[in-house]
């Protein structure tokens, strides 16, 4: 199964689907910032209150990521080896930019995820901002709201996040329809519809995430 062509594709599709699920839940959670400090700080407080469950969840997520990345790189290397000599001229007709750049957007997402953890979870980058988490808010909760607002008020940080979301947009614009084809649930009629739905879903996720730094930069969300 884990040596076969389709078997490994199924692992990619399954882990990819779970990661998409995580991304959507993460987005819904983050959007509580639009309610204000109360919204997102309460959300963060709930997450922290889960205690060991958070760690179980993190380990599962890390394994999904690890499997997805491992097979993604392995399959990409095999596929390159299967087409060692390039054409002098090649016209692609059906495929998309997103499909052709899966490994690059994937690696960019990985790099971003590492930075993201250093930034908001481990408070390694921009410690002067992360320090704002510690003065607890009026209800004694960590002040995630202030940390996010102060971070995204820095144009550079917002730009990095927005750029990363562009790579996620590209990755999902191909990935979401691809996973349904890999699971074999599509046929000749439903494939073109799914391609449109998947692209729309990728755009919704992109707009959702990017709306947070953009709203902060525009001053719509303020301390």
């Amino acid at each position: 199964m884990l040596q076969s062509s389709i078997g490994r594709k199924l692992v990619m599709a399954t882990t990819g689907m779970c990661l998409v699920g995580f991304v959507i839940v993460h987005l819904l959670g983050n959007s509580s910032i639009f309610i204000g400090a109360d919204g997102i700080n309460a959300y963060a407080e709930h997450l922290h209150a889960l205690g060991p469950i958070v760690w179980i969840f993190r380990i599962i997520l890390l394994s999904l990521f690890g499997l997805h990345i491992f097979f993604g790189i392995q399959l990409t290397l095999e596929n390159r080896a299967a087409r060692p000599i390039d054409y002098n001229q090649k016209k692609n007709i059906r495929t998309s930019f997103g499909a052709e750049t899966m490994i690059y957007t994937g690696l960019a997402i990985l790099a971003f995820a590492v930075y993201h953890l250093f930034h908001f979870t481990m408070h390694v980058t921009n410690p002067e901002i992360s320090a704002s988490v510690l003065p607890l808010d009026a209800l004694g909760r960590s002040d995630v709201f202030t940390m996010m607002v102060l971070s995204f008020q820095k144009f550079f940080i917002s730009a990095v996040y927005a750029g990363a979301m562009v790579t996620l947009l590209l990755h999902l614009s191909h990935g979401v329809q691809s996973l349904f084809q890999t699971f074999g649930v599509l046929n000749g009629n439903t494939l073109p519809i799914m391609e449109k739905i998947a692209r729309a879903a990728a755009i919704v996720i992109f707009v959702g995430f990017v709306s947070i730094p953009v709203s902060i930069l525009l001053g719509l969300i303020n301390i």
Partner: protein
Amino acid sequence: MDLTLYVWRQDGPDAKGKLEQYEAKNVSPDSSFLEMMDMVNEDLINEGIDPVELDNDCREGICGTCGCVINGIPHGPQEETTTCQLHMRKFSDGDSLTIEPWRAAAFPVVKDLVVDRSALDNIIQSGGYTSAYTGELIGEANNTLISKPIADYSMDAAACIGCGACVAACPNGSAMLFTSAKVAQLAVLPQGAIEAAERVNNMTEAMLNAGFGNCTNHYECEAACPQGISVKFIAKTNREFIKALA
């Protein structure tokens, strides 16, 4: 019409090849691509140059022997058309054509535009058959009735002529469309269903072993296929693989 050709010339499997420029003069728009190449080859022979080798046989689009990549598209710019059925009226006077062989690790170049496609035969040998007995005692194959929609579905998959354009078009050099056409054609028939699980496992394994890549759903194969084989058969093959796991 007059055309400028850039044709891949390569003496043998291990030789280094390169594109050579040739002029094709006074080409009739009604001639086929292969007839145009015949004319160019006659000129080359008259000049004492080795003619361009290219595979072809029936020249009526059914045998699957011909095929080269013309201006970046396997079998050229006309949809659902083999190289031999492509006519020069599809091009304009003064056009430049870049003509290259199928490119894939599993398809080594034999000479010029001829590639060795026996890797496709290896895939078929690994499971592209049914072991159904026929004969007087067991009854005619025709005694097993098959509904029209299933027969049609199977026939659509069976339309594959084994040309290899799907591999040539695939950015991953995958033979998934070719393989899945056979898996799907047989899986839906009562005679083929018996060995469906073994077949999908063996054929996709043979595909990898032959040096083809993995499908990542670019769908370039479907766009290049002269027989219009649909990627729905790849989805079907993925389903068959999942069924075989259980």
